[in-house]
């Protein structure tokens, strides 16, 4: 009964005209950045963050969340029609989606991707709604040692899942922590690494760092490589899948939804891994595995359902513990903080309108996405045809205005440009940006909880091993750090599909 009351609050928030507009703008832009290769949800969220300053916190989060799950929908369009994944989570959709398009079945491929995404997205929101409240109650028992070790585990898992060398990913995470702590010390108020710049007293902003690392650097790489797009010429009629398509897709959608949701909850886990695992599962249990890669509709339905369900799952650690599980959710945490709201176990009690409003808006958003993805497919195809030489100046312009308008400071533009160069070099030298951003967001919380834990235990480190949850988190982290030293585990790590953000 309590759940229905809360749902009532959620609907009253999500259905307010302004919030409906925010939701629509979010899913529309999400689909757009999903369709366009070269700009990801993180870049788009940081671009639009300044726009939300005048809105209510729930309006802001509704829009930014819409960008995240909207991008998962949009990514499939580019994969199916161009064979270039609009999003990393849609890489696997290229295999069978593009093959279907070449066989003249682009319509059913796009249709099942949209329907599968809708069903999975809705199921994951139901899961989020049912699982988040008991978890939040449980999380109330956590103290600083649990929080500190959970955050250490989150960063460690993400570095474990990063591309290439784990040492490089850990260096990035360490650098992210340092960047996150620049500014005034929250306890002693002493200036730390501010180099006597007034602009650095409040620390470096999340937006210039993210836009530099994921926006500017991506543009530089695209200018250098040039994006070649060849849209498959096929009929887009008959978007509704046939009865046989539905029969072949129902199982994959159900399995993909479950898999995606639970993998999305895990720190570092997310849309990319779940889409790959879903594809592998479907291929393994299929009666006709030889059809995979040649246009099997299950190879589109399963992964597309999984990557959308993962977005719902990823909200659980944020809403219940206040800990982001991946870099996109870290951006959302940043948005919560900017609006003066602290996500975590108390969010549901202190701000039920935000908690339930955002959850219900995701139902609404999923329905909007279905409407956007089917009838408007022609528009997305036209957008795909915009040449990059016209698109990149506009992306740069949005980055410049977006960063400037956060604090009306040219200094932030310089920071963004410096991180743009750094991000470009990082890609050249095979360093990943995601661990840096997650550690940047978590850094101040990690320091705070570490210092509190040490003060609590009077300097005794055993506090992290004597409390069960803290001990488990720390043991998992240490194990993950040691895994690459064992050759066959190192090989296994290299086989895991990796999370990318742009």
């Amino acid at each position, binding site marked *: 009964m309590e759940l229905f009351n809360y749902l009532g609050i959620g609907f009253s928030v999500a259905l307010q005209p302004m919030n409906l507009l925010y939701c629509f703008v979010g899913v529309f832009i999400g689909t757009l950045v999903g369709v366009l290769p070269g700009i990801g949800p993180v870049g788009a969220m940081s671009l639009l963050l300044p726009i939300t300053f005048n809105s209510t916190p729930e309006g802001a989060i509704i829009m930014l969340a819409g960008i995240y799950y909207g991008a998962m929908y949009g990514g499939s369009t580019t994969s199916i029609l161009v064979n270039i994944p609009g999003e990393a989570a849609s890489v696997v959709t290229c295999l069978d989606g593009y093959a279907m398009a070449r066989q003249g079945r682009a319509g059913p491929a796009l249709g099942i991707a949209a329907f599968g995404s809708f069903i999975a997205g809705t199921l994951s929101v139901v899961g989020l709604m049912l699982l988040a409240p008991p978890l939040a109650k449980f999380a109330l028992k956590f103290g600083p040692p649990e929080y500190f070790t959970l955050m250490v585990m989150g960063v460690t898992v993400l570095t474990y899942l990063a591309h290439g060398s784990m040492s490089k990913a850990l260096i990035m995470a360490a650098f992210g*922590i340092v960047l996150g*702590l620049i500014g005034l010390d929250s306890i002693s108020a002493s200036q*730390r690494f501010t180099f006597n710049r007034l602009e650095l007293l409040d620390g470096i902003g999340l937006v210039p760092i993210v836009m530099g690392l994921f926006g500017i650097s991506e543009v530089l790489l695209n200018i250098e490589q040039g994006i070649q797009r060849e849209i498959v010429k096929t009929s887009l009629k008959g978007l509704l899948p046939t009865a046989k398509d539905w029969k072949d897709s129902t199982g994959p959608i159900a399995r993909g939804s479950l898999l995606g949701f639970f993998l999305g909850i895990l720190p570092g886990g997310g849309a990319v891994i779940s889409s790959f695992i879903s594809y592998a599962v479907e291929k393994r249990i299929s009666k006709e595995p030889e059809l995979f890669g040649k246009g099997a509709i299950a190879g589109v339905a399963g992964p597309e359902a999984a990557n959308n369900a993962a977005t719902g799952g990823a909200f659980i650690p944020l809403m219940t513990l206040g800990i982001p599980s991946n870099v996109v959710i870290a951006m959302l945490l940043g948005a919560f903080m900017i609006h003066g709201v602290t996500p975590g176990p108390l969010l549901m009690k202190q701000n039920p309108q935000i908690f339930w409003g955002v959850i219900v808006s995701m139902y609404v958003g999923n329905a909007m996405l279905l409407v956007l993805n089917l009838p408007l497919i022609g528009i997305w195809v036209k957008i795909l045809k915009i040449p990059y030489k016209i698109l990149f*100046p506009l992306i740069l312009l949005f980055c410049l205005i977006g960063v400037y308008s956060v604090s*009306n400071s040219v200094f932030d533009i310089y920071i963004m440009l410096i991180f743009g160069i750094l991000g470009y070099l990082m890609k050249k030298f095979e360093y990943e940006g995601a661990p840096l951003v997650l550690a940047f967001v978590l850094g101040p919380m990690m320091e705070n909880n570490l*210092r509190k834990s040490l003060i609590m235990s009077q300097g005794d480190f055993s506090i992290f091993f004597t409390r069960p949850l803290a001990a488990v988190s720390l043991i998992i982290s240490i194990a993950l750090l040691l895994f690459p030293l064992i050759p066959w585990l190192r090989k296994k790590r290299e086989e895991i599909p990796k999370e990318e953000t742009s």
Partner: protein
Amino acid sequence: MKNRDILSSLFWMAMGIGISYGGYALDIGNLHNPGSGFIFFWVGIFMIGLSLILFINAIREKGTKGELKALWAEISSKKLVSVMAALFIYAYVLTSLGFILTTILLLIFLFKAVEPQKWSWAILGAIVCTLAAYGLFKIWLGCQLPQGLLGV
């Protein structure tokens, strides 16, 4: 030897040394009462350790000849440098020239720099895009953009 990893590990080692020194200078404190430089110091040490591992692995691994040069082999570095230079100049003159003028000039340059468009297209495109961005951000969303010479 993997030259690119040697180079980057040395860079991060230097950063680690700088960060741990900065943390030490700030006051590390002790385990009972960690100071404001505590985390910086230990994270810096951690970075030094990791970059050492990376450095040793890079020396042991087999790299390819001319690996560093190959990173920028088939690209036009002139385009990249000119785009970045234009963005830095944009930031430098933004407050004095104002949003509209600076943005039009930047966009004309960007439309011409990478894959040159016709002058008429570049100028018209730059003006239309700037005015659209001004309308969206300044008029509709109420963002503050530098007024500069034109006073708007």
